[in-house]
Structure formats: C-alpha cells, structure tokens
C-alpha cells in the first residue's frame, strides 16, 4: 500500500536526532532522524551490529534514547509506558526464545491481546487469526520451546500480530524458515500491509527486500546512510556495500549490463529478463 500522508496526520512513528548508547558504553545510534508513515512497507537493513535492532527497540519503548526523541503517533514516547506503546508498535524479537515463555503456543499467542485488555472473546479471535495467518494452528497445544527454530519464529511473529498493533516491527523474521515458509510469511505480512498495517522488516535477505518493501532504510555504524525507495536504493551499490550488503544477483547483473541499455533499476528476476529481452529484441 502506498502511504498517503495528509496534513492532519503526521508520521505514525518518528525519531528526532536520537543517540543511543548501551550501558557498556557501546554507541549504537548517532543522531538518527526518520519518519514512518502509516501503511508503509519498510525494510530496515544494514550489516551485523549497524543499529537496526536498537531502532526497533526504541520504537516500542524497550529502550529509551540517550538523547533526542522518539515520537509515536505524535506523542513523545518517553512519556508512555512500554505497555501503552505496544498497542501501536509491536516488536517480534530477533531471537524468538527471548520472547517465548508460555507453556503452550495457544497461551503464548493469547497472552498479548489479553494483556492489552481485550475482552476474552475478542482476544481469542485475534489470537486465532494470528495463528492462522502464520499457519501454526496445528501447533496450538505444543510447548513453544520444543518447536523447530522456524516454528518458534512463527509463534513469536503470531504473538505480535495477535496484539493487532498498527506498526509491526519484525526483526529477521525469515531466519530459520525455508523458502516456502518464508514466502508464506511474506504473503501474510503483505496482506496485513494491504489492510493498512505499517510493516518494518529488519532483514539480511536482500531478495525479500527487493520483492516486498517499498522503502529502504540502510544503517551503517549507527547512522542512517540511505533512506529512499527500494528501486533507488539498489541502484546505489556502493552505499549498500559499506553497510555489509550486496544487492540480489539479478540486480547486480542488471548493473553489469547497463551499457547495453538494460535498466539498472530492476528489482526482480522477471523485470531483468524483460529488460534483457527488450534489448535482445531491439538488436535483431
């Protein structure tokens, strides 16, 4: 869904000149300013240790800025509890085991909506929808920590979806999933985005970014070094490389063929094949 910011509605989440240092002195973010608009599908990317997870945790109040402000729906997040913020911004941890604690999958997914004060029937409805979106209804009675990494991952994402937040921040949600499972997860997220949810996807999988996200925020050493449409981001391989990232092979190939008139702004294999076929046809 293409966001359409209006004058009367500001960004749903924003950061203003945010610095963040961990207790051990590690400076994780330097003067980060960004706006997230309702309905956006954003990829937050960068090398290991570039500050992605720190941003995610600041947005839902798990961390508080050392300097600067985090705004959620226009309000200073510093004045809100994590519980209040989590109604707006849901965060699925990078390591699902940091999040899972109930004895069954059903309880795990129900915990969030119940805790937010939804009536029992409503909470169950939200939990069931999340279970079915993640295709884990059959695991309801299992112990979360007995599951495979891929299934634990899906339980953790489901437990965030169940809280029905307006912004979903998912930290490496596809790790542990195989290609089929990852595609299914991305379909579910795209569906939620179509319904108007804002998606912030933290990932190393550049192919997922190219195929699903409209906007890319590239992090390096605690700075946002690139913030633009996905198509444009991948046409800046140098900026990406500095951040430990490499565009998907199809995009790299497009760059190498740009002298022949192949557009370097392709995102998918099909777009590339179409471009090369055009050049091919034109040369017959």
């Amino acid at each position, binding site marked *: 869904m293409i966001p359409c910011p209006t004058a009367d509605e500001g960004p749903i989440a924003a950061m203003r000149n945010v610095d963040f240092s961990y207790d*051990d002195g590690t400076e994780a973010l330097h003067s980060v300013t960004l706006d997230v608009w309702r309905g956006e599908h954003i990829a937050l990317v*960068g*090398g*290991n*240790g570039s500050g992605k997870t720190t941003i995610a945790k600041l947005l839902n109040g798990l961390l508080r800025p050392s300097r600067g402000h985090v705004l959620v729906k226009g309000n200073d997040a510093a004045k809100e509890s994590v519980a209040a913020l989590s109604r707006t911004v849901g965060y699925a941890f990078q*390591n699902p085991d940091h999040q899972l604690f109930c004895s069954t999958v059903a309880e795990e997914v129900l915990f969030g909506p119940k805790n937010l004060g939804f009536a029992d029937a409503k909470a169950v409805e939200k939990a069931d929808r999340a279970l079915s979106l993640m295709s884990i209804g059959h695991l309801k009675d299992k112990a979360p920590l007995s599951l*495979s*990494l*891929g299934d634990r991952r899906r339980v953790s994402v489901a437990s965030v979806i169940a809280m029905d937040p307006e912004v979903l921040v998912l930290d*490496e949600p596809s*790790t*542990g*999933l*195989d*290609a*089929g*499972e990852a595609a299914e997860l991305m379909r579910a997220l795209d569906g939620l985005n179509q319904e108007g949810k804002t998606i912030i996807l933290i990932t*190393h999988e*550049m*192919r997922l970014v190219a195929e699903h996200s409209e906007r890319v925020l590239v992090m390096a050493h605690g700075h946002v070094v690139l913030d633009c449409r996905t198509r444009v981001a991948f046409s800046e391989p140098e900026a990406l*490389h500095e951040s*430990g*990232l*490499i565009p*998907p*092979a*199809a995009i*790299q*190939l497009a760059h*190498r*063929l740009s002298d*022949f008139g192949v557009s370097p702004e392709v995102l998918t*294999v*099909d777009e*590339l*094949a*179409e471009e*090369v*076929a055009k*050049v*091919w*046809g034109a*040369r*017959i």
Partner: protein
Amino acid sequence: MNALRMRDVSVRYPDADRDSLDSVSLDIARGEWVLLLGANGAGKSTLCMLTNGLIPHVVKCSLKGQVEVFGKDVARHSVATLSTKVGIVFQEPENQLFCMSAEEEVAFGPENLAIDREEIAARVEWALETVGLLGCNDRPPSSLSGGQKQRLAIAAALSMRPEMLVLDEPTYALDPIGRIELYSLLADLKKKHNMTVLVVERDAEEAAAFADRIALMSEGRIVRTGRPKEVLADPNALRFIGVPPPQLCEFSEALYTRVGGPKIDSITLEAVAREISTVLSAKKGVEVIHP
C-alpha cells in the same frame, strides 16, 4: 579412504512415524566441498549429527546402516575421538558458545583432550588468527557480533585440528558480505589444509559457486548429487524439494522463455554477465570489450 562414507543409513527418532534419514548413501572425498541443500525437515541436520557421532551416542534414535569418517565407524568411536576428525558448527552459534572469553571457548575442546598447555596455546592462537578474531581473545562471546560469534564457533571447532568441517546453515544470521567472508574463509582452509567441507543450506544463492558438488535432500533421502553446474541447470529439481534456485538460474530460465535463448552455462555473476554481454554485442554487431 574417503572423509565420509555412508551406506544405507536410516535414522528414526523415538515417537517419529517416519525415518528422518531413509537409506542414505553418500561419499565425500578428502578435500572435497559438498553443499547439501534441502528444505526444513529434509534430514540435513540429522545427517550432520552423524558425522561426529552425536548420533547415535548422544541423540537417542535408532540407527541402521554404516557411517565411517576417515575410516572410523561412528558407532564404535566416541564423540571425543571423532571430534578430532570432524568439527561441527551449528546453525545458532549462541547455542554452542558458553565460556567467559573467546580464548576459553576455543581452548575448551583441546583442554578436554588433555593436550599440553603450550600446544593448546598455539592452537588457540592459530584458530583465532585463522578466523580473523585475533585480538578478541578476552572478549566475552556474548559481546561479539553475529558474524564474529559464527567465526568463534568455527575457531572452537578448528582448535581440535579436524580434517573435516561440517557447518549446519552457518550463514543464517550473517549479512551478505559476512556470508561471502565465511565461505572465503572455508575456501582458504580447504586450499591450505586440504580441509573437507560439508555445508548445509536451504538456499543455493551464495553457496553454490564455492562447492565441488551439490547434494539435494528431501524427506530423508538424497535425491540427486552432481557438480554445481549440472544440478543448477535443472531449477525445477530444486523447486521440487523446496529450495529456491539461485536468481541467475531463474534469470536464464526466464530469458529463455522470452527469447528462446541463450542457454547460459555459468553459475557465477561474472561469467553470466560475460555470456550475456557477448550475445548482446554479437546482435549489435560490435566487438565486446571485457573490463
């Protein structure tokens, strides 16, 4: 003598209704790099755990058939003995790091073999240097980045001076450049020490070009093995077992559908770019100059 020799190996976990490995036979030569591809649940990790005897000695299950590593039958040798031949690095490095410092982590294995102190120190130094973590000796593993943790897990395996490394989805938490660095490190170990390498992945994208041979696995069976070029020439075989073909293969397929050619024979970016450039230049009627 092969590094790994498996004959009709079947493994079934307690309470499972089917075999996790189903009559698997596989040989890996010394110094060979095999990439094992398959979807979740294909049996890849089970196969890995056989290579240092975690199956059958630690993980309870029924095992049929024969597994030999460097001529040693895994059912008759302890995990400790087999670990001097085969080092395993698992998917989640956190799960295998438990010491207070990187150095202790790497020293743990050889200390348990009661090797003398100087030799241990030399091995720790070598292993940390090999993976590019020299200088991080005193850092707690928990303070390292994802990529560094993965390399530390490899260093811990290397300090046992194994002849074979088995890596179960080693790149899952690494950024794209970290992945290339990891594979380059393995390539270096193979070149300098004739290291045998078995890498398990669910995705062939970056891994394929490094391997000597690819084995495809599905539902507990090895359904195909071959040189990377041969295996990747049939993207549907990959799709059939739930593994996405590399983008370059998909591209060559998509281009062929659209214009009826060319059949691209390469699997690396440089080579594919060269092939396509040549064809496009020929059509244009000018000579292509490769950079």
